[in-house]
């Protein structure tokens, strides 16, 4: 089979290498945690605001079909006009949630490239990033 003369004994890594690998776990873990918490925070503030404003937490609006990029642009545009409303906060919560796995993959790619210098996994994560980016621009 094609082992390409790769002879490192499995399971045995130098401790520096090992601690760099563990560093990646921490980085990825915190990106995921922060993304989810920020998203939830935005949604909760949006709902609480809605409740204070109208006495209920029903959000009766739909999103027209658009890709994430158009969604972000329209929300940022509304925010720039100073029209910060419950609806904007809930929408931003959804955007942040969708961008969380995206940034996780992006950070992993950079970490494989710059810290672990693992070309194989830099290529793998780049591919995933490319497909994800493409899907976010889907129409």
């Amino acid at each position, binding site marked *: 089979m094609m*082992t390409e003369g790769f002879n490192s004994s*499995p399971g045995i890594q130098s401790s520096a290498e090992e601690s760099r690998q563990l560093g990646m776990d921490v980085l990825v873990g915190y990106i*995921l945690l922060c993304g989810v918490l920020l998203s939830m925070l935005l949604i909760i503030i949006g*709902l609480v605001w809605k409740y204070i404003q109208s006495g209920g937490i029903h959000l009766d609006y739909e*999103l027209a079909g658009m890709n994430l990029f158009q969604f972000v642009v329209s929300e940022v545009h509304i925010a720039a006009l100073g029209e910060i409303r419950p609806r904007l906060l809930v929408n931003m919560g959804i955007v942040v949630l969708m961008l969380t*796995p*995206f940034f996780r993959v992006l950070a992993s790619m950079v970490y494989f490239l710059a810290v672990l210098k693992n070309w194989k996994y830099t290529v*793998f994560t780049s*591919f995933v990033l490319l*497909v994800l980016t493409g899907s976010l621009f889907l129409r």
Partner: protein
Amino acid sequence: MIPFHLVFPVAILAGFVGAMSGMGGGIILIPALTLLGVDIKHAIAISILSVIATSSGSASAYVRDHITNLKVGMFLEMFTIVGALAGAAITLVSSTRPLYIAFGGVLLGSWLALLLIGHESWHSVSDQDGITRWLELEGSYPDQVLGQTIHYKARRAYLGAPLMFVAGVIAGLLGIGAGAVKVLIHDLVMGLPPKVSTTTSNLIIGVTALAGTSVYLAAGLISPGLAAPVILGVVLGAFLGTRLLVRLSNQSVRRFFLFILLILAVEMIVRGIRGA
């Protein structure tokens, strides 16, 4: 519009089960939302959005506890993400009854396969093949129940990869994490320990779900009024489920998983046949 106080508890339960089993939660959420009167395509779209939240929320803890295998995850993501885009595209043009039956069929298939290997306890792969070694798919994790670090190697990545494409199609198609299928591939095909299987599946699900969500967002199927309670509930449930998982033995996780799968499989198939 379904009231917040009905959707929220259902979402908590879905998140809890999703994190406990590595399935992602959609498997509970979609049947429940359709029972509350949500159209199945909207339910699928909201479910897959919420799967991003469950996956990321619970994965964040597993990854920091060093149980998840990032390399296994990132290698397999390449295949599952392409599948997810294809699956979501199929759902947009499909009618609803086949969706129910496909949903139940996937669950039942997973249940049968898991049952057949259920009595066998995990032991480390000794015959790692060249391709899997080249892909560096191995690792170790601290097992809180056994109180020691478990070293393991994966095998048969060449078989796991195309199967993960299929898992991606199912995820995109049905708006679930398809974690059941991913866990099976990790367990049976690649020989990973059960906890590494479920937690790595959890990580992969986030990326698959994002690809699916993009398709549904573009189709205008994401409704924020439904998304808000579902996201909040699912994350809360997943948080509770995650804290429980690390304290359980591999056998209890498997038994719990089998139980949930069977109930839902039967439920969805019956609804598909009856015309829901």
